[in-house]
């Protein structure tokens, strides 16, 4: 039956390629759009993603991880006194202009962290030692940045907000939504961005492992007024939710995904219907000979399954190629769940697309073959 199904497909090559084209186009577009949306959303919360091992203490006005209104540094001492807190690390999050010797300027977000733990960054370190940030003007820059990444060489000098800095390390894909991150010591970050020594953007809290995280989080929120403490994963999730609902990323990419599915479904459905219509005499003959509707439906399902398998394989290959081609600029990832989702989308398009044809055949009377 499988061989006969394949022969039915192969007999009409134009329709076969039309259906495959629709399938590949749809699955590729869905995968591509979802990957880009996830990469964009992921980059918006990368600061929280790579610091989920801490309890985040931020201002109650903070909406997400890159919106961090200043907190009084005295809160650090108050946090130390809360039961279950093991260590408190202040973090500075500010902005500025990076200038290369040739005069080219770039807007950056600067993250200042405290030695020796450097809680808050840098992460994805590809070269250099964070301790070198303590040397005069030590700076970590993102080597994956499409605009200046290739010029990030350790030992080279640059300017940040007009002050001379030396590149002491390279990171990989450390960026927010369209804004790359640079890292330095908390003291240098204050000096570069005029950030008051009495303030910090957030506190990253380590807890005593004999306590449960919710206990410590509750204790902080109960004892210290005008702060909001949340676990790392929770802070990441709430930041992600904020971006997902307010940035329009999910809405615009989601719409594209829906259109991609509708387009694929339409192309596959109509072409399969047309292929069945062209072969209606053959299907009628099968029914007259003694094929039940179930057996003919199976023949169509075999065909749509073959379209699904080959369409998915081609689309998956194209997605892998797309990921490699955009490696420098986007951190795209074809995760297991996305792969399973794409399998589901492919099957859905193939099965729903074949419904029109199956319906036509189910309604076909075997007596029609005599007319």
């Amino acid at each position: 039956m499988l061989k006969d199904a394949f022969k039915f497909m192969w007999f009409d090559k134009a329709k076969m390629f039309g259906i495959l084209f629709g399938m590949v186009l749809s699955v590729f577009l869905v995968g591509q759009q979802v990957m880009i949306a996830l990469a964009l959303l992921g980059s918006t919360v990368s600061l929280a993603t790579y610091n989920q091992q801490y309890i985040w203490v931020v201002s109650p006005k903070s909406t997400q991880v890159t919106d961090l209104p200043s907190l009084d540094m005295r809160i650090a001492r108050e946090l130390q006194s809360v039961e279950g807190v093991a260590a408190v690390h202040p973090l500075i999050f500010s902005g500025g202009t990076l200038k290369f010797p040739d005069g080219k300027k770039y807007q950056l977000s600067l993250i200042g962290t405290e030695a020796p733990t450097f809680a808050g960054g840098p992460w994805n370190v590809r070269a250099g030692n964070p301790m070198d940030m303590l040397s005069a003007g030590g700076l970590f820059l993102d080597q994956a940045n499409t605009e200046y990444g290739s010029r990030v060489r350790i030992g080279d000098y640059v300017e940040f907000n007009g002050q001379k800095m030396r590149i002491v390390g390279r990171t990989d894909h450390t960026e927010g939504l369209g804004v790359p991150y640079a890292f330095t010591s908390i003291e240098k970050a204050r000096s570069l961005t005029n950030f008051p020594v009495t303030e910090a953007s957030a506190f990253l809290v380590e807890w005593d492992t004999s306590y449960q995280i919710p206990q410590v989080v509750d204790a902080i929120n109960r004892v210290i007024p005008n702060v909001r403490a949340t676990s790392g994963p929770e802070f990441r999730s709430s930041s992600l939710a904020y971006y997902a609902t307010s940035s329009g990323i999910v809405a615009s990419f989601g719409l594209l995904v829906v259109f991609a599915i509708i387009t694929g479904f339409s192309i596959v459905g109509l072409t399969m219907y047309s292929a069945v219509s062209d072969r209606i005499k053959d299907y009628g003959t099968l029914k007259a000979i003694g094929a039940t509707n179930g057996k003919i439906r199976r023949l169509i399902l075999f065909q749509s399954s073959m379209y699904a398998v080959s369409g998915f394989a081609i689309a998956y290959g194209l997605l892998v190629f797309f990921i490699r081609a955009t490696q420098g600029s986007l951190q795209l990832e074809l995760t297991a769940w996305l792969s399973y989702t794409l399998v589901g989308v492919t099957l859905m398009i193939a099965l729903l697309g074949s419904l029109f044809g199956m319906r036509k055949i189910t309604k076909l009377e075997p007596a029609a073959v005599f007319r």
Partner: protein
Amino acid sequence: MLARLEGVGKKYQTGDQTIVALQATDLELRAQELLLIIGPSGSGKTTLLSLIGCVIYPSFGELYVDGHHVNRMRANELAQLRLRTVGFVFQQFNLLAPLTAAENVAVPLKLQGLPGATIRKRVDEALEMVGMTDRRKNLPKQLSGGQQQRIAIARALVSDPKIILCDEPTGSLDKDSFGVVMTELRQLAKDGKSVAVVTHDPRLAAYADRAVEVKNGYVNHVEIEALKS
């Protein structure tokens, strides 16, 4: 008795109008017999053939095929009955265009779910019977009309049905192929099958044992000798 029609007829509803395609008919199909169903176009002979072939349900009367009461059977049961009991030969051959001659012949056996080795053996036998072994790998479009009809006969025979129903089997054939096909059908009747042939070609009377004429939906027995003359 392989098929028995007791007052069987067929009517269709077209809007407010009821069209009687076949009036109440009594008829029997016997083994080792070639029955000719003649009549002008639109007279109801294909309706009669469709009823005997269990392709449509009778609107009234009782229809029995191979001991089964067709009126009481469901569509899927009817399909199974057709698959095992009836072999069809169509005017336009109706071979499945994407499949080779051998694959076309194998279709009824595959639908029965027989094992591959059995299918190959029986397809070889059927192709040999109609003298088309050397054309087994050809697609229908690579065969002449006569060759296609012989493949269609092999397909009708391969599942060893008791009844062979032919709808204008020589309508699309030249003179030479006409003789070959009718001789094969005659031989099948001699071998024990019940063969019913719908035609408006009186030349086929030379091969028939019995004939009925369908006119305006009414079925009447006619003398075969009268047709021959």
